[in-house]
Every structure is written in C-alpha cells, then in structure tokens.
C-alpha cells in the first residue's frame, strides 16, 4: 500500500504541475468557433504575408488591355465572360490584379489592426493598473479617461491629418507617415475601455488575501503589479485586445472608405471596397472579396476573443 501511495503521489503532483497554458489550450479547443477563427486568422495572415512571394504581381501594375477581367469561376454560368487563369480573381477597370491588391491591402489593414491594438492595450493596461493600484492617481487618470472617451475619432483624425500630415510625411515618407498617423489616431482613441476594465479588476484584486500577504512580506509596488496583479487581469486584457484588433481594422476601413487615410495608389481592404462601389452591380466580386476579407477577419478575431475569455476563466475551465 505504501508503495502504491508512493507511486501515485508523483503522478498526482505531475498532473498538478501540468502547464496552465495547456489547460487553457484544452479549454480553447472545445470552442469550435474560436478554433475556426484561429485557423482563419492564421490563413489570412499567411495569405497576405507569404502570398506576394508566390503571386508576385505588382498590385499597382496597370494593364489596360486586360481590364475588367471577371473572376475565373464566372465561366460556370457565363461561358462568354472575359476570364483568364492568370487573373483568378479578375482585374479592375484599369487592369490591376485584384488578388495581388487584396494581398497588399491585407498587409496594410492587418498591420494597422495589430499595431493600433498593441498600442491601445499598452496604454490601456498601464493607465488601468496605475489608476487601480495607486489610489492617489485614480481620480486624475479616470477623469482623463473620461475626457478621451468624449473625443470623437473621425473629427480628431481630420484635425490630426491637418496638423501632422506634412511633418510626418517629411520625416517618414507619405505611406509611413499616414500609417503612423492612423495607427496613433486609432490607438489613442480606443484604450479607454481596457483601462476601465483593468482598473476595476485591479481594485477588486487589491483587497484579496494573497495581495495582503504579499504586501505584509514587503513586496514593492513594481513587483506586486508584475507578479500578482497583471497575471490575474490577463483574461480581460486578452479579450479587449482581440476586440480592439477588430475595431482597428474596421476603423481603418471606414477611414479609407471615406477617402481619408492612405493615398489612392496604396491599397487597403477598405480602399478597395471604396474604389469599386461604383461598379458594384456590374462587378460584384470587386466588393465581395475585400468585404469578405474584412468581415471574416473581424468575425474570426471576435470568436477567438470569445474562446479566450472562456479558456482563461478558471471557473469555466473547471479548476
């Protein structure tokens, strides 16, 4: 018996030492939508990043003789359609390859989404944790958050465009300059929700016994935040990160759709949509492809967020 117990104890402790991220992954896997979302996000990211190496057509290349080529599948119902295997998604009214444009546009849209999201999360977490942990800064920081919440994004971006476009253009070139402008604009106007949530959670955690215990052994504030508080608020941060990515992509599309944002020879998904709205009825594929890319990416990111929320919550995970 003693031997048996001796044998079982290590196994049990081995199970207990099982990496908690594996648990998270196990729980995450049970959410079908989230798994599908993750795969789609990986697929679309690879499509945009690695795609241009295989499909090396310059998205800006004009080929006026091959304009208005329909996508290859049009042949199924219209055998007279102008199609070409060299242009599987067709070309636009100036003969630019639509597939190359979707890839290039996706790179920009995703880059804007990721960067703006990371910026928003960093600002939001920093302000949220500081406000929640240091009581004296709370009032100040939360009133500042209210102030930023009241700023409307579009007029703000228009003003930023007016003030900073020329200096940024001079310093970083036209595309890079606008990129920085848009990313900053979106980043600094979308961190507030994260800050609010993180602050609330930190305030609740601060009153818990383990924090009291840590404080009683003299843990400094810096260590307290990184060691005890941040890991415990990771779940809401992750969730707002995924939602933030989706919002950033949509905001960029909206800006491009309004004709603000990037120069006209610089495709993004929103811009491709905007350029082709005129011919929507005659060439529906030109708005369907970028539209699908935007909505599926946003949908899949939302599903990932949903799955992550479930997986990161120990109560749902059953521990």
């Amino acid at each position, binding site marked *: 018996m003693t031997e048996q117990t001796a044998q079982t104890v290590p196994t049990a402790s081995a199970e207990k030492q099982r990496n908690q991220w594996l648990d998270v992954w196990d729980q995450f896997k049970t959410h079908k939508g989230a798994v599908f979302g993750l795969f789609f996000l990986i697929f679309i990211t690879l499509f945009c990043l690695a795609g241009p190496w295989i499909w090396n057509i310059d998205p800006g290349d004009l080929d006026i003789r091959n304009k208005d080529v329909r996508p290859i599948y049009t042949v199924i119902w219209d055998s007279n359609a102008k199609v070409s295997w060299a242009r599987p998604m067709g070309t636009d009214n*100036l003969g630019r390859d639509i597939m190359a444009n979707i890839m290039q546009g996706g790179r920009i849209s995703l880059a804007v989404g990721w960067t703006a999201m990371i910026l928003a999360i960093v600002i939001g977490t920093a302000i949220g944790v500081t406000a929640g942990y240091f009581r004296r800064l709370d009032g100040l920081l939360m009133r500042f958050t209210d102030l930023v919440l009241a700023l409307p994004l579009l007029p703000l971006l228009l003003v930023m465009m007016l003030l900073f476009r020329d200096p940024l253009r001079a310093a970083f070139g036209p595309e890079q300059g606008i990129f920085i402008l848009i990313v900053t604009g979106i980043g600094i106007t979308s961190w507030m929700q994260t800050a609010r949530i993180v602050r609330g959670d930190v305030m609740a955690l601060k009153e818990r016994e383990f924090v009291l215990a840590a404080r009683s052994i003299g843990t400094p504030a810096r260590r307290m935040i990184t060691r005890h508080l941040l890991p415990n608020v990771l779940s809401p941060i992750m969730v707002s990160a995924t939602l933030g990515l989706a919002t950033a992509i949509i905001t960029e599309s909206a800006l491009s759709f309004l004709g603000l944002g990037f120069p006209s020879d610089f495709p993004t998904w929103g811009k491709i949509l905007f350029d082709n709205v005129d011919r929507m009825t005659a060439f529906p594929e030109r708005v369907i492809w970028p539209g699908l890319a935007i909505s599926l990416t946003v949908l899949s990111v939302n599903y990932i967020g949903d799955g992550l929320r479930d997986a990161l919550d120990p109560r749902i995970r059953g521990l």
Partner: protein
Amino acid sequence: MKLKTALLGAVASLAFAPMAIADGHEGERGRDGNVNIIYWQAVSTLNPYLSGGTKDIEAASLVIEPLARYDENGNMVPYLAVEIPTVANGGVSEDLTSITWKIKPDVMWSDGTAVTARDVQFTWQYCTAEGGGCAQGAKFANVTNVEIIDDKTVKTTFDGPAPNPYQAFVGHESPIIQAAQFAECLGPRAPECTDANFGPIGTGPFTVTDFRVNDVVQFAANENYRDPNKPAFATVTFKGGGDATAAGRAVMETGEFDYAWNMQLAPDVIAAMAEGGQGVPVSAFGTLVERLEMNLTNPSPDVPEGERSTSAAPHPFLTDARVREALSIAIDRELLVEVGYGQAGRATCNLVPAPAIYASDNTACLTQDIDRANALLDEAGYMMGSDGVRVNDEGVRLSILYQTSTNAVRQDFQALIKEWWSEIGVETELRNIDASVFFGGDPGSPDTFQRFYADVEMYANNFPGTDPQAYLGAYLCDKMPNPETQWQGENINRFCDPAYDALWAELAATADLDERGRIGQQLNDMLTKDSNVIVPLVDRGRVSAHANSLGGVVLNTWDSELWNIADWYRIGE
C-alpha cells in the same frame, strides 16, 4: 450603345419640353410642391463673391440673379435688365468705354423693396473693396466706375475700350446683391457677415428658408418674383454631399431626387444607372476642361509659411519649361478619355476648347511620346538615378506631389498618369482630398486648390458665357492667390509673364471678333502649347441627370445649370 440610347432619350425629352409647356403647364405659383436637387458637393456659402466653387455659385443662382444670363446656346438673355445694351440701341457708347444698363421697373427683392441702381453699384463696390479678396475679381478687372444715372439706370465705365462689356453683372458668377443687406460687409469683413452670406436676399425665383453649412439648403418660392405664375415648385430641397454615384442612383435608380448635378462617373456606370428607369442623363459640351495645373512656386513644407506656394519661392524644377513639356507629352489623353468619360469627353490640348473662334488648332500634345519626353528631361540635365528617378547635378529629384479631389475617375487618372510619369523617371506621390474641402475655398485650410500645397493638381474648370476674356484674365500676374488675399484668386499656377499681361490688355482693347479670336488663341497657346503651365487633358461634356417626372430642364453649359429653374415643372401622372 446604352449611353447613346440614354442620351438620345435625353435629347428627345428636351425636344418635347417646350411642347409640354405649350401643352398648358401653366398655373399658379407653387402648384407642383417640392423639388429635390442633389449636388454631391455640399454648399458652403450662398455668396458667389466669396467662393470659387461651382456648387456654391449654382446654388446661389436660385436666389440672386445677374442683369443678364446666357441661354443654352450661349446667347444673352436679359434678366434684371430691360434689354441687352448694344452700340446699336445706344446702351454701349461708340468708343466702347461705357455700358448703360436699364433695370426692369417692376423687379423686387424678396423682402419687397425695389431693385435700384444703387444695388448694382454696390455689387461692384463689394467685389472691389480693399482687402476683400473677391473670388470673381476678374469680372470687374477693367471697371473703373459704376455710377447711378437715375433710380433704374446704371452706367459702367471701363478703363479703356471694352469690346466685350458683358462681363460685370452678366452670368451666374456676377449676380446683383442687395446693398442694404451687405452694407456692413465690405472688404475684410465680408466673411464675417454670416447671416448675409448664408441667406442673401435676392430677386430670383426662390428664397433661402434654412441653410445648413455643407449639408442642406431649403428654399421656398419667392413671393415677390416678377412672374406671378412662376416658379411651379413651392419649395426646393437642395441636398449636398455624398458622391456622384449616390447622387446618380438617387435620381435614376431610386427616384428619391429629381435632379443630380455633374455626374462625373465612368460612362459604363452612368449607362447602368440609366437602366434604373427613374431618370435620364442629359449632356452638353461646353468649355469644361479637366487639366493639370503646374505649380510654379515651391509648395514644400520646408519653405516657411507665408512664402510657401507664393511667388517668393520659385519651384525647384517645374519652373523649367522642358520638364513641364515632358510631363505633358508623356500622357496618353485618348486613353484617359476612354477610361474616364467615353462619349462625354474628348482629348484636348486647349484651355479654351470652345466657342470655335477661340479654339486654337493646338493638337501637338494628343500623341503620347515617351521617347521625346525622356530626351527633353535629359536635355534639361536630369539624369536617371539608380532608383529610377531622375536627379540633376544639384541633387534636385523629380519627385511630384499630385493632388486632386476624391472621385473615382480622378483617382483612375492619377493611377494612369503616375504610371506614365514613372516611365520617364518622375516619381509621383498621390493625394486625394474630399471635394468639399478641396473646392471649399476656406482660407484656413491647407488643402484647397487655391492654396495649392502640391506640385501638380488636377481639376476641371470652365468659363460662363461665350467670351474667354475674363477666364484668360485669371492668369494675370496680380491674380495670384497668396496670404494677403486670404488665398483667393484665380491664377492657381502663379503664372506671371509680362508678355501675357500685355497681350491680354490688347485683347481687352480689341472689338473686332476675328481679331479677338486670334488673340484669344494666342493667349491660350501661351499657357498651354508654348509653356505647358496648364496641361489640358480632357474636354468634358457636362452630364447631369433629372427624373423622368421633372420637366423644363434645359442643360446649359454657358451659365448655371439651374438657370431656368423658374420654368421647371412636374410632369403630370
């Protein structure tokens, strides 16, 4: 084919319009209710003297009227005047130095007071006041005095013989404003008179009831309009904003609006919309030319504000005529027409494409010639660098910022022109600006076409009436927009050539029509063929659309499109 059918339909409906009027479309004022007009550039002011934007001037034409207008054939029609003064009827002096207008005795302002010679005189004073920066200054360039003869007679004196005395107070760009209303708004105070600028009191068929800047203007029939049976519509909703596509759809597909202005859309798109069956496109060729304007001054942000884009800072490379010519001949205009306008456009090298006597036989730019363009740039000392962009010995790179308004056709043009310029080693950065801002004329915005903070810009412009003298007068040295004039002025390129000024003065002193034609062509050539300061691309027909149920529309390329709105009516069910 479809567009052609649609245009034929439009012609047919125009042909029927007068018959329909004869069929008894008469009745009391306001009988046909409301008419919805959509201009996809929203109206920012109703004072044409403070805005160069066509949308503002045309919206204002519902309210304020000139002494005489042009009809759809370019003939003058008296509006507030009793008749057109000529030498024959004694209205124009024998030496062509003065013109005497007689105002119709019964015309009233919409507030019930009579229109007097004082109002006409005041209009001149308003536009020429010190420090005002009047957008229509060219109209009054040669006027030295406007004097009141009696209550209804006014005499305009010119600084010399004026062979075309019909510039001031004629056409929609130079309407009469009420002296009583604008008395406090002279000179630098003009933009401050918001109430007056947003709701001018006029003599036209409608009055302003509600004005929302850059959105909607509501008009109601003018109770004091001189014809008791007009206008047929009691109210006008003048919606602005959106884009040409939405406007076209709203008229031709969904029927929400009755009239849409300036359908600058690809021909296949218009044809597809016309199949919607609610409305028809109408078109007419006038003097509208889509052109590239070359900036002769330096728009770089490195130049201090105040000198940037003014004659104090010359452009680093666009001041070289060979560079400009190379940029011009690298463009394949026929292809631009095919892509952008179809039957509604034709390639041109002229700033003044019509009327025939003023149209130069300048066709050299019509053939694209990349080799010659490259040779010209070599000759100018710009050698191809390793990155495919030409640089000269002093390190000046041929790098161009090319701006225009946001519009699908213009963005297609930008893409094509960028491609051609890259073939001759010119690097192009594209920028598009919302049309309401670009043409808004706001002196505080850096993005207006007058301010021109770019190397090259593209837009279309035309002249009202049949005489290009005032239009060509825009390129005189003293018409440059600069900070002192609140960035108003028509000499967008900052072109300044004493020979041009002298020749224009000669045009202004010549009465003989053939001679005027010759000089006009020469002036046109100085700006286009000889110097390529202005690079014309496409002569555009104007395409607008109106609902099938809207009668009386006569598209006019020589004046405001809404010139005869008093005669519009609803076709009965």
